[in-house]
């Protein structure tokens, strides 16, 4: 009984923190980027105000759009939300753990991407279409890479559920192996693409011909745009959670024993901070690449993933 209540509590806490903190995390990243660029940058709470402002504004619908226009942002938002709920943050063994299969998560991200693409095609003008086409292209290699990576993890952890992977990686001493290095590199590549950061896409750039994600949401305004933006923030959190869960599982709390929560929470915040810092440093130090170089970028990630699983085999053979 107690355990159940604790699990429920932990899950609620996880969900609540993720949802509440998502804008903050984005604000943090923007702040750090600004600092690294030598500017003062917007306040940390800027994203919250942004959302509120959008909620207050009235929502426009292009006259050429169909009735499903309002549906796509909701779809994208819901998909990301569910993904965020599934991916463990500060603790393992959450209520959602049984459903939290890696492949399901990939599917949910694909679902979100699909909804965004359709939203981009909705109005029937050039930019949305171009953005959707490019997004579809990126999706190809991203999914391939993610699946190949999963193979590496599953072979190590003998499980494809995120919880299982995290648990195994935390307890069993896998150590720093070459394959995990490859896997991490590949994972980061895919994460950058999926969250629409530099070098594959520029979240702050609004040059029509270059943008991908922005192009698809170009026609959205008001609360629909708020939904989309909030979904973007959640996606960032979700990905950071994913990477944290798989690659930095140490010190994660167990939902069942309340005593391990504080440590877990603290470590989780630290992990997010570190990742945000790394992300902003990386973004500042790199320039956006041409659209048709992105597939090569992701293809490299795919190959890295395959290498990872192959090296695992070798490592298993040489007993390392």
């Amino acid at each position, binding site marked *: 009984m107690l355990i159940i209540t604790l699990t429920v509590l932990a899950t609620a806490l996880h969900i609540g923190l993720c*949802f509440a903190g998502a804008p903050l995390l984005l604000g943090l990243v923007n702040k750090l980027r600004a600092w690294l660029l030598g500017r003062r940058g917007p306040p940390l709470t800027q994203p919250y105000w942004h959302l509120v402002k959008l*909620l207050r504004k*009235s*929502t426009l*619908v*292009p*006259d*050429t*759009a*169909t*009735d*499903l226009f309002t549906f796509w942002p*909701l779809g994208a*938002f*819901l*998909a990301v*939300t*569910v993904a965020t709920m599934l991916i463990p943050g500060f603790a393992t063994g959450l209520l*959602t753990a*049984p*459903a939290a*299969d890696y*492949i*399901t998560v990939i*599917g949910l991200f*694909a679902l979100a991407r*699909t909804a965004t*693409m*359709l939203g981009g*095609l909705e*109005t*029937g*003008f*050039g930019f949305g*279409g171009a953005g*959707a*086409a490019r997004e*579809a*292209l990126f*999706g*190809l*290699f991203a999914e*391939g*890479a*993610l*699946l*190949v990576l*999963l*193979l590496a993890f599953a*072979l190590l952890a003998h499980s494809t559920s995120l919880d299982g992977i995290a648990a195994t990686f935390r307890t069993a001493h896998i150590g720093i192996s070459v394959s995990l290095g490859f896997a991490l590199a590949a994972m980061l590549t895919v994460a950058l693409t999926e969250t629409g950061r530099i070098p594959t896409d520029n979240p702050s750039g609004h040059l029509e011909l270059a943008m991908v994600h922005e192009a698809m949401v*170009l*026609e959205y305004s*008001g*609360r629909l745009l708020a939904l989309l933006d909030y979904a973007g923030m959640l996606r960032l959190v979700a990905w950071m959670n994913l990477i944290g869960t798989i690659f930095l599982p140490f010190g994660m709390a167990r939902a069942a024993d309340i005593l391990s929560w504080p440590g877990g929470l603290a470590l989780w915040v630290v992990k997010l901070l570190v990742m945000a810092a790394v992300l902003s440093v990386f973004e500042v130090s790199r320039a956006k690449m041409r659209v*048709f170089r992105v597939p090569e970028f992701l293809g490299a990630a795919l190959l890295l*993933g*395959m290498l990872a*699983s*192959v090296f695992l*085999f070798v490592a298993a053979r040489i007993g390392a």
Partner: protein
Amino acid sequence: MFGLPGQGMHLHLDALSLLFGCILLPQVVAAAVAGMRASVAFWVFVLGMALALLAGDQFTLIFGFELMSAASWLLVLQGDRKPATLYAGIAIFSGACLIPALFLPASSLAFVLIALGAGAKAGLAPLHSWLPRAHPAPPAGVSALMSGGMVKVALYVLIRYAFINLASAQQPWWGEALVAAGALSVLIGALRAVLEVELKTALACSTVEHVGLIAVGLGLALYAKASGDAALAGVALQAALLCAVAHGLFKPLLFIGAGEVKHATGTTSLNWLGGLMRGMPRLGALMLLGLVGMGALPLGPGFAPEFLLFHAVIGAAATGGILARIGFSALLAVLGIGAALALAAAVRIIGLGFLGRPRSLHAAAAEDLRRGPLVAMVLLGALNVPVALVPGLLLQLMSPVILLLAPQAHTLPLTYAPLTLLILAGFAALAAGFVQTRWGVRGLQEAPAWNGGFGRPPAWLPFGDPHTQVSATGFAEPVMRVMGKGLLGVSKTDPAERFLFVPLFRVQTRLVRLAERVRRATIRERLAFVFTVLVVFLLVLGLGEGG
């Protein structure tokens, strides 16, 4: 009594044929309702499939199989004369491969023949390139049944023989070969599904992809059976069979819908459609359901099979040597890319066919579903829901089939729980709604969209200039540029045609010329033929008996 002289015809029903019968039934009903009721050839077609499924002896099996081919050939012929001959060729080829295979003792040769025959009929690479030509030709109901049903019957033959009748002689490489063919079909099928401009052709290509998925599952199961891996066999079979069920439900839905698009707009070329959701909302909604399945999106009917299939591949990769490891990780990559391609294809069909602005006045003036097709599509759509939401239940229903195919296989409960996801999504939706109502502003106001700085369209284009929105070709262009050129070449011709059919036709023409030369022979030359052969025979005789 009816049947082979002196032997008659034997029927026999078991779990496997029952399952495939269940796959077939709704499509048949739907196709009949959708307007094929009156056609005799259609019912002969159905009869052939039923006979093939219920066959208790080789004659009945081949009879039904070829009857199915013949009837569908006639239907294709009525639709479009061009692909009919190729289709007849493939159909008879599969018959010519199957008949020997049924009589040979259980051996690898028998399996190869079965795989060739059934694979050719199912559109398994490299013998697939007829399918995107032939399946779109007949009326929608028949296309639906061909894509959703006939292909399954071919797979049924493959399953029955590979798993049951030839089980005594099975080799690991059977599975590997099947997996390879399946992977190839997945890649080519999905890629072409993204590139094709014709709606029905794109759907047919996606059929090739799904046949590939099923073949991969079956191949893995064979491989597991041969290497005695019970769990893997179970999950692989689950994947294959569930994929067959799902595909048998959403593909006919899509084909019937495509037929309605054709009926309403007079074309199925995505470059002339657009904005149909406005004129045909019901069709749009049903197509959306089907396409969610085709794109293997979560909460759709197509996701659970992919999910299981990925698990199966991962499970297979854990076993075997370094080559198997490399091979299976490559397979996983191919499946992932294939899934993403299928997703892109689905997005393309929805986004360019049903959303955005019409690209032609026909598309703008389209009227919604007729009654019959509506009923058919609603039926299929309703049947899609349980596959999408309670796949676990279906898998339990299928367990006897799986035990029939792989007696030692044991199956695990499905870890993909769509209902849970729905509940979570419900919570989130409630929260979002609350926030909206609490702090947000209600109401939507229409405003002209910014058309990217293009000039005002002429008055006779009520929906603006079609050329200012992305075309189907344009949407596929990045994929074509990155993958298409590599796999299909610039001309977008299927490699199977380039490397298989074209050379064959060349040989055939050469032989025809030879035959013509013989026919042109004068009387003297004909006498000379006779004479030479006679002398040859006599020589054979003399030497044969003298020596």
